[in-house]
């Protein structure tokens, strides 16, 4: 058995997009993934963190054999996803968040039982697993409800059970908590961690654009943007690279035209990002020395910007992302 659950080498994917009606024959190329090299060990909970459109879902689609790569190679559970998809599929399962898939006319149990049969689980064992897992995710009392009668969040929980039910060697979760409320997201995260802790040979690859999720759950995280893996390490090590900086959050009144580059131009300010918030702005600063805070405050004062709150904080994965990309994830998504 291979030590690696997932292995990719120079993996790339280019989409060819047809032009509009006038330019039908013109095919534009969109690079969704570029030279992705990843090794995920068995037993790991590996996170892909990046904004929408970064290439996370494309990578998952290649790994679960739904999409052919344009370049490179990928192996899952020791099998080549392109040459041996029939050997990959019995070892994996996948759940995509933020969608309401499933046969609405079937009950929750019927939906899950049907998929268990496609995976060749004995019916009795499947029913036992379904009941146990539904109870765990808080859907025990909805087992006989038609899935069309479930809310989007509950349907998503049903789909999460569908993914875990077959006890795959490698499970792929694509934004599993997208669209779930805070409580349901917490339940799902707890459930994921518990499932992995039950059997150390289980591997889980999760994509998310929620920093907290990646930080709380993942053993290792790859930060991905515009199809490229920018960094890959444990959340602690990723943050450690920023610990030389002093990080401050300043909540202010409106900035009166003051822009991030003007602040970044100040001596010993490594990075400044500005986020609009209700009634003002939130300024995130990475300073080489704490002493550099003084000039920043001076600039704010000169522009008649009032400081509402000032906090010194520990680095987060968001800071790592800003450090690598130069913008916050929200800014990247806004520019997309």
């Amino acid at each position, binding site marked *: 058995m291979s030590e690696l659950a997932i292995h990719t080498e120079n993996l790339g994917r280019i989409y060819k997009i047809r032009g509009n009606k006038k330019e039908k024959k013109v095919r534009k190329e969109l690079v969704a993934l570029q030279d992705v090299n990843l090794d995920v060990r068995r037993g790991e909970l590996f996170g892909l963190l990046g904004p929408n459109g970064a290439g996370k879902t494309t990578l998952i689609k290649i790994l*679960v054999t*739904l999409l052919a790569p344009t370049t490179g190679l990928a192996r899952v559970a020791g099998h*080549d996803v392109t040459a041996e998809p029939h050997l990959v599929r019995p070892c994996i399962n996948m759940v995509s968040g933020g969608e309401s898939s499933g046969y609405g006319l079937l009950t929750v149990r019927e939906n899950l039982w049907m998929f268990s049969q496609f995976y060749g689980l004995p019916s009795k064992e499947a029913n036992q697993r379904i009941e146990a897992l539904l109870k765990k995710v808080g859907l025990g009392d909805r087992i006989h409800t038609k899935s069309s009668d479930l809310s989007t969040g509950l349907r998503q929980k049903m789909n999460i059970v569908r993914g875990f039910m077959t006890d795959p060697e490698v499970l792929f979760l694509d934004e599993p908590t997208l669209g779930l409320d805070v409580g349901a997201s917490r339940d799902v995260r707890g459930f994921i961690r518990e499932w992995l802790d039950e059997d150390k040979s289980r591997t889980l690859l999760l994509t998310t654009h929620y920093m907290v999720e990646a930080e709380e759950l993942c053993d290792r995280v790859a930060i991905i943007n515009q199809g490229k893996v920018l960094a890959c390490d444990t959340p602690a090590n990723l943050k450690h690279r920023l610990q030389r900086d002093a990080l401050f959050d300043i909540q202010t009144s409106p900035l009166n035209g003051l822009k991030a580059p003007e602040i970044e131009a100040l001596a010993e300010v490594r990075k400044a990002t500005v986020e609009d918030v209700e009634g003002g702005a939130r300024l995130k600063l990475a300073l080489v020395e704490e002493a550099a805070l003084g000039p920043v405050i001076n600039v704010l004062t000169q522009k008649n910007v009032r400081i509402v709150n000032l906090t010194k904080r520990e680095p987060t994965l968001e800071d790592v992302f800003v450090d690598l990309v130069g913008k916050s994830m929200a800014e990247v998504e806004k520019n997309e």
Partner: protein
Amino acid sequence: MAVTQTATAPANTRWTEGWRSFRMAAWLGWQIESNWADPFLFFIYSVVKPLASASILVVMYSIITNANFENPLFPYIYLGNAFYIYVGAVMSGVSWAVIDDREHYKTLKYMYVAPIRIPAYLLGRGVARFLTGSLSVIITITAGVLFLKVPFNPLEANWPLFFLALFIGVVMLAMMGLLLGSITLLLVHHSWGIAEAVAGALYLFSGAIFPLEVLPNWIRPVGYIMPITYWLELLRRSLVGDIAQAFPTLAGFSNLQLLGILVGLSLAFGTLAVFVFRYCDYHARERGTIDMVSNY
């Protein structure tokens, strides 16, 4: 290019997965088709719709021939139309599963990720449509015999030939459905109407409602290479015998010869369907259309 030749699974695994896929798809298809939450709608679709379409033909025939129901053309048209229900049900049913799962239920990607055989799964989804289609065929023929004097005597029918031809024909239609379903895998925007368009076109070219001689010379070959033409002829012959042979199109062929042609063409279309599926399956992965939802 990273694409390499796909290795094949051992034969026993293929059969196990294939049977499992077919069986469960048939179960799922039946759950969908038999979801008669509204019996009135079910009545309309399964009873009124086929009877209404048969009635249109009967009225047209009656006006054109001055109600000459004794002419052998009448049972020719009536039975051809009745059995053509299977074409719409089975062929469209199999290919429709791709659209239904991809666009409506959004489950096609999960089916693809599961260790199943997609062709067997799609064929299985057609089973329920065959069963509901059979009900429509039986109702239409019964109505024809009871109220329109279609000359059918169950004691004189060649039942072994009927069931043999029916079986071969349904398998053939399922394979043609797989062929269309495979093409549907590659189509995102115009996939909805492909099966109905093909079924509609074949209605004209396969001798369902008139002998091929009625068609212009240049278009007749389409009818001659379609196994549906021979299948409908065999079904007519097995039920009403000589009356069906009154038309010159295939009168020169014996039942055995027709069966041979039907089997040969069915094998040819079945083989073509398998190759087209492999081609489309490969290119669907290349283009990323397996889980692409058009929202059309």
